[in-house]
């Protein structure tokens, strides 16, 4: 009945575990912030690079901007209208779109790259700082959701959970 099987991600898991274990109890979700879309260039997928104030104490501005800019570049690559996309479109039309039964569209390939990139960023940069980025595709490409976890301190765990149970014991 154990549903949890850790996906193997080499040594990073150990580092993350070590970081979390240092907190001596489970992290608590303190806040979620949302990076909205930037529509100044039309309907192409692009996110705002404005640095949210809630992250000021958590992460350097350059790291954050780097992540968002890389994501924007990936999306621009996926939606690029050029020779390759025309070729793919015409080929698909000629085969009555049956070709997509065996082949992935370029967009899907780029989305997989993005997913991998986000996972890598989470492991290396964001999780050690108590942050977690959610892939925008899971939010309908509307926002980049960043969860902020709070370190409640070594003695905080029992008081934290008892406050939850205490409020219902009426």
């Amino acid at each position: 009945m154990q549903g949890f099987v850790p996906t193997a991600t080499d040594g990073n898991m150990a580092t993350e575990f070590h970081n979390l274990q240092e907190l001596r109890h489970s992290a608590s979700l303190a806040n979620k912030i949302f990076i909205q879309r930037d529509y100044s260039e039309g309907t192409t997928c692009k996110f705002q690079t404005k640095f949210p104030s809630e992250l000021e104490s958590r992460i350097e501005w350059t790291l954050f901007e780097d992540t968002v800019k890389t994501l924007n570049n990936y999306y621009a690559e996926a939606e690029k209208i050029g020779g390759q996309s025309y070729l793919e479109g015409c080929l698909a039309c000629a085969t009555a779109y049956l070709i997509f039964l065996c082949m992935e569209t370029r967009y899907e390939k780029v989305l997989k790259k993005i997913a991998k990139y986000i996972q890598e960023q989470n492991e290396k940069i964001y999780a050690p700082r108590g942050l977690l980025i959610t892939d925008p595709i899971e939010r309908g490409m509307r926002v980049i959701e960043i969860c902020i976890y709070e370190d409640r301190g070594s003695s905080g765990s029992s008081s934290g959970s008892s406050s939850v149970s205490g409020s219902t014991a009426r």
Partner: protein
Amino acid sequence: MHLGVSESMRECEYSQISTRSSTPMETPYKKRTSRKRKWESFPGRSKFYCDGRIMMARQTGVFCLTLVLILVTSGLFFTFDCPFLALQLTTAIPVIGGVLFLFVLGTLLRTSFSDPGVLPRATPDEAADLERQIDVANGSTGYRPPPRTKEVVINGQTVKLKYCFTCKIFRPPRASHCSLCDNCVERFDHHCPWVGNCVGRRNYRFFYMFILSLSFLTIFIFAFVITHIILRSHRNGFLNALKDSPVVVCFFSVWSIVGLSGFHTYLISSNQTTNEDIKGSWSSKRGKDNYNPYSHGNIFTNCCSALCGPLPPSLIDRRGFIQSDTLQLAPPTNGITMYGATQSQQSHMCDQDQCIQSTKFVLQAATTPLLQQQTSEPVILTTSPENGGSLPGRTSLTLAGPCTSLPLGHPASQDSLHEDSVRGLVKLSSV
């Protein structure tokens, strides 16, 4: 007190499910623990078939009519006219007719069955965040809610983004909310009853190819039916010819479809949607400086980008399984229910180490992308379905140990799904 009793009852049920084989009491629960797909709790009014593979509007009667008309007309043509024409003229006629017919059917089905580009509704946290931002921006606590619009400058044109109260998002430019399907659709063109679906970003090219090929097909059939009649009347006389070859295709339907194809060709070449054209959003009548900011400048690029551009994937993930794993923030009010209490009570039972381990797994699983679904596991933590059930958030991530984690989620998730389905039913009945 009453709450406490039911809580303890729930606890017993959880442990029974986890450790023992099925007993008569838990059979109803066992059935409900089968995973549900996301389309089953989709908040809009779209209908799904084939386990979420096919998505259509609620009213599909006119679509059936379209299918019948096309099939009957083509059927009659192939049965009555083609044998004569193949013999008299060339066998290429039924072959070309057949290819056109198959192409028409293929594009029609593709337009009708695919997701037009529906935008999923905002999660409760997103909606709350937006509300907060709007309140801050307005700065007033007036009773009359101000109109919620955002202005954005796209390629030099000021475009207003409207807030959708149903989906709780600011609609991207060119998106619109379809009242028939109750969804926001990206690059919304129009809702076509003939096709039984909205026409939006993801299926516009199929729609265009459908009407284009249908106009070719109708002209083709009309022309060759006339040819057939003329050829026969040379032999048997006009009235006899009419008797042998039923003239099925109505003159007016040919012209209406050809007219529609012409209209959409114009729209594609100027990169506009039907919605924008009808409203006159980019017409020069509105102002001298009014121009279409989305147009690429020349007709060729506009056409290519509309027809051969990249096809974005569906954003709503109809066939994914509902994972009750979304970590919700605690609401500012007294929203703590017995689920939270049960959870925290069970958390006392588990080790500190197990909690940490589980948290790590949660973070791991939460970063597991949607596309790699074969590796994702249901992270049973709290229960809140994607479409924003009204369950309050949890303040902490404290988990039950693995032995009780699986059953913890399910009764609660059933209730939340039940809540959603009730809400859905209420919505449908109120239409």
